[in-house]
């Protein structure tokens, strides 16, 4: 038996495994078992019904837009927080976590109030013919709000860690600011950037609380997958709820696999030089 210098290995490892089994593995298995209680044909009918497919489309599209927005906004915000010093920087840094701290239902209610026809933003947008509340745009806005911190918080430490010499080297070799960013900084923060985007996207796919208030929840138009699972549950149709939920679970696993592969590929040579 190998001797460990640090004590407590068996205790901590045991607790960790117990936790994983109780909180993560068991519910997931129950979900899969529930869905598996359906005949294959029934399962397929439920997950490929027109209404279900419409929810996938709504959810994926809105999540894609929300992630795109957060990719740009999150990168900019992380850049500002790391690179410049200005009064109120610490406050701004703290505010970034607000969407994490705020109950999503509160966020949903607040966003609905803002974007309703009579709300502060809604009133300004209405004359332009843009309505956000009760449309897919509203869903994207709610997703963007609740997943905003992911990109910022994953890029920030990596950006802070970049040695200034690397940029100075690029500058002294004649690179313009844009070239320094595109060819030196961005490739180095890309794995973190990707991880942040993937997290934001995954969170958006699963977001429920903030969306149900602002979406209007019209089947085929503004109904998200999580809500459909909830409706089935409400109807005591557990297998159908589990079937819909298993699709979301599958999507989450695919996301994890894809982003991890990309990261592995990008970082294959990038141990710190």
């Amino acid at each position: 038996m190998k001797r460990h210098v640090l004590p407590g290995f068996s205790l901590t490892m045991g607790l960790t495994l117990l936790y994983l089994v109780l909180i993560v593995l068991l519910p997931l298995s129950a979900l899969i078992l529930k869905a598996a209680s359906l005949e294959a044909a029934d399962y397929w009918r439920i997950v490929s019904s027109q209404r279900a497919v419409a929810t996938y489309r709504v959810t994926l599209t809105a999540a894609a837009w929300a992630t795109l927005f957060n990719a740009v906004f999150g990168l900019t915000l992380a850049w500002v927080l790391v690179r410049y010093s200005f009064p109120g920087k610490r406050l701004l840094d703290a505010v970034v976590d607000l969407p994490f701290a705020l109950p999503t239902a509160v966020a949903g209610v607040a966003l609905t109030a803002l974007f309703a026809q009579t709300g502060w933003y809604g009133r300004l947008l209405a004359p332009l013919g843009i309505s956000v509340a009760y449309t897919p745009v509203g869903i994207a806005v709610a997703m963007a709000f609740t997943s905003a911190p992911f990109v910022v918080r994953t890029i920030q430490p990596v950006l802070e860690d970049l040695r200034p010499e690397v940029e100075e080297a690029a500058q002294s070799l004649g690179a313009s600011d844009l070239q320094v960013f595109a060819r030196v900084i961005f490739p180095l923060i890309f794995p973190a950037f990707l991880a942040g985007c993937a997290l934001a996207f995954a969170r958006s796919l699963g977001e429920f609380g903030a969306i149900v208030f602002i979406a209007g929840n019209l089947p085929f138009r503004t109904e998200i997958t999580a809500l459909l699972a909830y409706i089935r549950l409400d109807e005591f149709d557990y297998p159908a709820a589990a079937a819909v939920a298993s699709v979301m679970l599958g999507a989450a696993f695919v996301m994890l696999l894809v982003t991890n592969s990309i990261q592995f590929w990008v970082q294959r040579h990038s141990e710190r030089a």
Partner: protein
Amino acid sequence: MSITVRSLTKTFGTFTALDGVSLEVEKGELMALLGPSGSGKTTLLRLIAGLEFADAGTILFDGTDTTHLSARERRVGFVFQHYALFRHMTVADNVAFGLSVLPRGRRPDKAAIAARVKELLELVQLGHLAGRYPAQLSGGQRQRVALARALAIEPAVLLLDEPFGALDAQVRKELRRWLRDLHDEIHMTSVFVTHDQEEAMEVADRVVVMNHGRIEQVGTPVEIHDAPASPFVYEFLGHANKLDCRIDGREVAAGGWSAPLARVAPAAADTPAPAGASAAAVAYVRAHELELLPESRAPEAAALAVVRHLTARGGQVRVELSRRPDGAVLEAEVSRAEADALRLTPGTPVAIRPRALRLFAA
């Protein structure tokens, strides 16, 4: 290309990093900026590179004012202590970087860049590692890649910031000999920063000794070694003993020893203190200029000491002495033959007498 620096001043907050420094680096010269940390040597290098901007003063390259040009406009090759390689690029891509960011009109085509990269990697003897990533190289190899990358843009001057500072002793020694050879081959005006006096003396054509944001001395390694210009240079170069002494007319005395000025410090003898006056002074005696004599044959005007420790160094023996009776620690260097003749072992009493010294006002 020559570099002229005129009264450069640079402060960081309340700290004065450079205090009116002027310097002339001649074309094709390899110059070392030597000093302890905080002496301003790196700041001076970064100002020359355009990575930092001076509060006052001017920098000229071949007589052309470059004080306000950015690093990318100055065409300097800069090598960093910690290499600063692009770790997401191969060695070849790292070296090609400077050429590939040129504006479209001036950028060589792919084949020309590849040929140039190959040529540079041959120059730094790393042709076989073109496809590797920085993380797969040793420290010495990384620094040579960094050098090849800096040379790729055909810089006007080459600036190196503690280029061997992060390497272990063996590689360090090899690489600095190699840098000297490379410089003899390409004859590019080069300035490097170091806090290692041995490194500066061994590699550079001329050495600039810096302290507290000012230049203490500029000269060839031999000039600096033979005639340190200030107490600071004596102490920084090491192997020198500081003696508090008194000057009485034409005599200098310290710790029981005395000698005529004309014999030990001819330069000071030319301007003796007024006859009869007695002045405190500081004398520096280098280790090899401290003569050891058997105690039994001690001349009248010698100080006494006890050997504390002996270290063999090639043909020389370093002797650490404790002066009697005050216990001041002194350092002497004698040949092996002398050490044997004196039968030096720890505890041996000896008489000591400076052969030459340099006086500074106390």
